[in-house]
């Protein structure tokens, strides 16, 4: 008789855990491709920020000689720095290229989330707990029922007046 944990997975009700563990391993392997894609997108995202920062700093440096050397110098420098950086970064965030890349970055992040969700579902199933999909079905059913009740009630609205109104 073996006391090794894996023996538990081979017979009886825990057998499904062994099968599920395989699913988790598969998900982990599959998620690698998406992790590579996500890292690529994330690098691209930070590259855009870094390039914009470098260009904005160049513009600030070019303005430096114009700032008078007096007691307002620090505030003037700060103002120019903030204005140029805000303008350049807003231009970046407004650009189609940034929007498109950001959309792809979020999309790749969501792919990773899906793998995480699949793995969690396997664990939940092993523990005889409802999966996200099953809970979602309950939420959806509840929403549909509540909506039906609301619409039925609205056919005969009868609001209870407040007892303490205009005390």
């Amino acid at each position, binding site marked *: 008789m073996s006391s090794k944990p894996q023996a538990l997975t081979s017979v009886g009700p825990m057998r499904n855990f062994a099968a599920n563990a395989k699913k988790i391993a598969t998900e982990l392997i599959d998620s690698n491709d998406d992790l590579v894609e996500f890292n690529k997108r994330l690098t691209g995202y930070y590259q855009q920020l870094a390039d914009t920062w470098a260009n904005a700093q160049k513009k600030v440096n070019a303005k430096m000689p114009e700032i008078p050397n*007096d*007691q307002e*110098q*620090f505030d003037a420098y*700060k103002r120019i*720095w*903030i204005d140029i*950086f*805000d303008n350049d*970064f*807003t231009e970046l*965030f*407004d*650009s*189609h290229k*940034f*929007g*498109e890349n*950001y*959309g792809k970055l*979020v*999309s790749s992040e*969501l792919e990773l*989330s*899906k793998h995480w*969700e699949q793995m969690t579902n396997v664990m939940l199933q092993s523990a005889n707990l409802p999966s996200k999909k099953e*809970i*979602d079905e309950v*939420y*959806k059913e*509840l*929403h*549909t029922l*509540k*909506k039906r009740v*609301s*619409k039925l009630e*609205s056919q005969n*609205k009868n*609001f209870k*007046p*407040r007892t*303490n*109104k205009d005390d």
Partner: protein
Amino acid sequence: MIEENRLDPKIVEEFLKFGKNMIEAPKLVPAPDEINMEVTEHEVAYTEDKVRLLHYKPRTSNQTKIPLIIAYALINRYHILDIHPKKSWVRNLLDQGIDVYMVDWGTPTNMDKYLDLDDYVNIYLDNCIDFVREEADVENVSLQGYCTGGTIATAYCALHPEKVKNFVATAPVIDGWKDTTVISNLARNIDVDKMVDTIGNMPPEFMYYCFSILKPFEQGIEKYVNFFRNIENKNFVDNFLRIEKWLADTPPIPGALFKQWIKDIYQDNLLIQNKMYVGGKHISLKNLKMPIFTQVAVGDHLVSPECSMPLHYAVASDDKTLRVYPTGHVGMIASSFSQKKVVPELGQWLIKHS
């Protein structure tokens, strides 16, 4: 010859004072929990699920017969319209004799992920308005929608025009393709189906990301530098912390509602083209024949004027007013300028139309 590098003593003095202010900040500044955001006295008139309808206590002996119901936005919470006694939109209207109600959409949980525009327009807002109609014994009410609340209120006016006597659209999100903000650029490029199917409700963290890239250096640096410079000014600190607390408190947006809003407004731009449907019912801006007062801010970096103003030109109303103010999205509703110019103009218009 060695050139002497001199530092202006005033700069040194300012740096030292700034450092001292940063060290003393924890002693001078109240914790966020100590700030009471419920400024003007009110009671909860009606509740449904997580939605609450607030009714503000009158501050004048006579009030207008037609009450005003404010449909707040989906982002952040209604407190901005009553942020400070001296900058309160609500209090100013009450002082002008207007009977004010406010819709607080509450904080949706995962269970609410299937709530959609139909729920917000045809159930929650409709029930709030019916409650007020019955309580105030009036046929119809004045309705104000702010920001995304403006979109919800616009859809409501199109579907239930008989219940709205006057419509006030304050920075409403209407023409998504004309919106020039960073928000619209992100909204147009996200796969919203995948996003909502994967994560359900739109989490506050995503909204905070969107806010963080709006004027990032002005908001991320200059604002806090000013805060530490003015840390001994109690009024400044109080105002600053109230706004910060409001900014940091945004509820999640129900997934189904977020999906429809992004797709119909920003991606497909259906509302302004009269092609949008809510709960299977067609939304036509031509149904908006009631008096309409549209307020937009030139410096609005969340909802650009180009996005809001098309409402004024698309509706069928003969009695419509467009006001363009030299301020921003929040400045239009919660600032000294707002108190002196924006709310008094609205109050006069409402009184004239009540």
